[in-house]
C-alpha cells in the first residue's frame, strides 16, 4: 500500500466513523463502553469528519494525519475514563482497537511528513526519509506588462531583488556569476549564503544554485517568456530548497510565515507592481480607528 492510498483510507475512515457517531451517538457510546459520555462523543464525531475532509482535500495532508494521532490520544484518554463494571471491558477492547489505529496513523503521518514521495514506507524503517527532505519545488507564475529584456535586466541585477522579496535583506554581486545573499530566517534569525549562476540566457532564463555550506540549500530557475499576442512577459519561477533542520525546520519556518510556497507568489506580485507602476501597493502607515494601521489578521500575514 503506498502512502497516498493509506492516507486516503484513513481520511474516509475518519469521515465514516464521524458520521456513525453523529447519526447514532448513543449506540456508539454503548458499544465502546462510555454511555455517560455521548455528548463528548458527538464532538469526537465532528472532529473526525473535519479531519477526514482535511486529509482528503489536501495535497500534503501531514498535519491532518498528525491531527489524527492527537485525536487517538484523546480517545484513549476518554476510554480510560469509562465507568467500571462491564463498561470497562468494552472500553478496554475499544482502547486496543484505537491503539492499533494510532499505530497506522503514526506510520502515515511520518511518511507524509518526510515529504519525499518516492521513498514511501521504506523510509520509516530505513530512516532514509528522516534526513533533510528534498521538497517538491515551489513554482509560481505571473504576467508582467513589460518586455522580457526589461524584466530580465532588472532581475539579473540581483541587488534589486530585496526591493520586492521581503525576506531578503541584501544581495551582493561578488562578480564572476557569484553572489552573496542575506535573508531573514525563522524567528528573527538571519541566514547568509553564497550562490552561483549555473545557466544564463539573456532575456530568457537565469538558473542558480547555492554553494556548499549554505544553511538553506537552494537552487532554481527563473524564465522570461513573451506572452501570447504581445500581452507582456510571462515569468516562471521554480525554486528547490532544503530548509535548515529538515521537516521540523520547515514547520517552524511556516509558523513564522517564512514559507516559500506562500512567499514567492507574493514576491512576484510585488515585482510586477514595481515594474509596472514604479511602486509597491501598500497601506502600511495609513490611518485607522485602532492602534495598528493595517490588520494583523488580514494584511500582515501576506505582507511580511
Amino acid at each position, binding site marked *: 500500500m503506498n502512502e497516498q492510498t493509506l492516507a486516503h483510507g484513513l481520511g474516509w475512515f475518519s469521515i465514516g466513523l464521524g458520521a456513525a457517531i453523529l447519526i447514532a451517538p448513543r449506540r456508539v457510546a454503548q458499544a465502546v463502553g462510555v454511555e455517560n459520555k455521548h455528548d463528548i462523543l458527538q464532538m469526537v464525531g465532528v472532529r473526525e469528519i473535519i479531519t477526514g475532509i482535511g486529509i482528503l482535500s489536501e495535497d500534503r495532508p501531514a498535519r491532518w494525519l498528525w491531527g489524527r494521532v492527537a485525536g487517538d490520544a484523546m480517545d484513549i484518554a476518554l476510554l480510560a475514563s469509562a465507568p467500571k463494571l462491564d463498561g470497562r471491558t468494552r472500553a478496554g477492547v475499544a482502547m486496543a482497537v484505537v491503539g492499533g489505529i494510532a499505530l497506522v496513523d503514526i506510520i502515515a503521518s511520518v511518511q507524509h511528513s518526510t515529504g519525499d514521495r518516492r521513498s514511501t514506507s521504506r523510509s520509516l524503517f530505513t530512516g532514509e526519509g528522516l534526513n533533510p527532505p528534498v521538497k517538491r519545488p515551489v513554482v509560481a507564475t505571473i504576467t508582467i506588462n513589460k518586455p522580457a529584456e526589461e524584466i530580465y535586466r532588472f532581475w539579473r541585477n540581483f541587488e534589486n531583488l530585496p526591493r520586492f522579496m521581503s525576506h531578503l535583506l541584501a544581495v551582493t554581486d561578488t562578480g564572476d556569476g557569484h553572489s552573496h545573499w542575506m535573508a531573514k530566517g525563522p524567528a528573527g534569525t538571519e541566514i547568509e549564503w553564497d550562490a552561483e549562476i549555473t545557466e544564463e540566457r539573456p532575456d530568457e532564463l537565469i538558473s542558480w544554485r547555492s554553494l556548499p555550506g549554505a544553511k538553506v540549500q537552494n537552487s532554481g530557475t527563473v524564465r522570461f517568456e513573451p506572452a501570447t499576442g504581445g500581452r507582456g512577459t510571462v515569468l516562471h519561477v521554480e525554486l528547490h530548497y532544503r530548509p535548515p533542520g529538515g521537516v521540523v525546520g520547515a514547520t517552524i519556518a511556516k509558523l513564522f510565515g517564512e514559507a516559500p510556497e506562500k512567499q514567492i507568489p*507574493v514576491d512576484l506580485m510585488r515585482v510586477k507592481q514595481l515594474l509596472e507602476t514604479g511602486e509597491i501597493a501598500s497601506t502600511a502607515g495609513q490611518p485607522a480607528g485602532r492602534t495598528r494601521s493595517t490588520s494583523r489578521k488580514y494584511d500582515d500575514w501576506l505582507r511580511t
Partner: protein
Amino acid sequence: MKANCWYGKHDMRVVDVPDPKILNPRDAIIRITSTAICGSDLHLYDGFIPTMEKGDIIGHEFMGEVVEVGPGIKNLEVGDRIVVPFPISCGNCHFCSQSLFSLCENSNPNAPMAKKVYGQSPAGIYGYSHMMGGYAGGQAEYARVPYADVDHLKIPEELTDEQVLFLSDIFPTGYMAAESCNIQPGDTVAVWGCGPVGQFAIKSAYLLGAERVIGIDRFPERLRMAHEEGGAEIINYEEVNTYDALMEMTGGRGPDSCIDAVGMEAHGATLEYAYDRAKQALMLEPDRPIALREAIRACRKGGTVSIPGVYGSLGDKIPLGAIVNKGLTIKSGQTHVQRYMKPLLERVQKGEINPGFVITHEMGLEEAPKAYDMFKNKERECIKVVLKPGAKRAVPVGSPETVIP
C-alpha cells in the same frame, strides 16, 4: 482627523485617527469636502462583507481639495479640486490599459486573499474590506489617494460638489449598467431597485435611447423619485406581482433588458424571500439573489440582464435554465469609473443631467452613525446622504425634500 470607522454590525463610530500621509510616490492627500454613503456601504453596516476589521475607515464616494502630492505626481497641484473614483487603479497594467479599471492587477495588496475566493483578484477599493485591499476610506476629513495621477477627475470651479460628487461611483455605475444593456431604439428597460444606483440607471437608460424604463421598488419615495425625476413607469412589488405586471406592460414579451440594482440583500414579498433570508442567516448562502432571479425570469428572450448590484460570493438557485434556453446575455462588474468620469462630467456641464437630484439629506460627518441608521431603515424618506466633514451639525441643502432633524 475625524473619520467614520466600522466596529462591527450596526456599529459605526466617528473617532479621532491620525492624519493620512504620503506612503508611495504616486499618492496624493486630499481634504475631503463631500463624502457620500453608498448603498453598498449598508452591506458593510449589516455585516455581510467578510474580512472587515474593527477600526476600518469606510467610504468610497468622496471628493475634495488636494493638499499634498507625492514626488511621482506631475499632473496635480495643491489646491486642485478632484473627485476620486472608487476603484483604485494603477493605469499601467494590462487591464487598466484596456480601460477595465476595476480589474486593475496591481492595486490590491491583498490580492492573494481575493484570489482564493474569486480565482483572480479585482482592483482595490477604498474602505471596502481587507479582501479588497484594506484601504482607508473617504468618510473622513482627509484621505490618501494612491495612483492619484490616474485616479482623479479635476472639477471646474463653477460646478458644485453636489453636481459632481456622484461621478465617484453611483452615476457611472448606473450608466455602465445601462450601457451594458446595449439599448436599441424602441427598447424597454426594467430596473430592479430604485435606490441611488437604480435612479441613475433609469436616467442613463433614457440618455442611451431607451423608449420606456420601468422602475421596481417598494418604497413610495423612491418610486416617486423614479417617476418624477427619472420619468420611469413604476411597479411597487408589494402591491402587484412584478412578473405579471411586467408582462402586462410589455405585451407579454418581457423587458428587452433587466438591470438588477439591488444586490445581495434583496427583499421580496414571497415565501422565496423567507427561504433566502433563512439560508443567509445560517451562513449557507451569503448572497440573496431574489431580484436577480426575478430579472432573469422576466427578461425577454435574447435580452440582457445587467448586474450593477453588489454580490459578494455565492447565491443559490440561479435559474440557469432560463439563461440558456432564453439565450440571455449576462453583464456585470464593478464599475470602470475612470472610463466614464470625463464623458459624464461633460453631460453634467451640458445640463443633460444634474446628479444632485438623488440627495435627500446632507449632514455633518460626525452624524455618520445616525445617517447609516436612517439610511438602513429608510427613515425620513432617506434615499441618499451626503456627509460634510467639518460641519458639526446638519447643514441646509438646496435639493427638494430635504429633511433636517
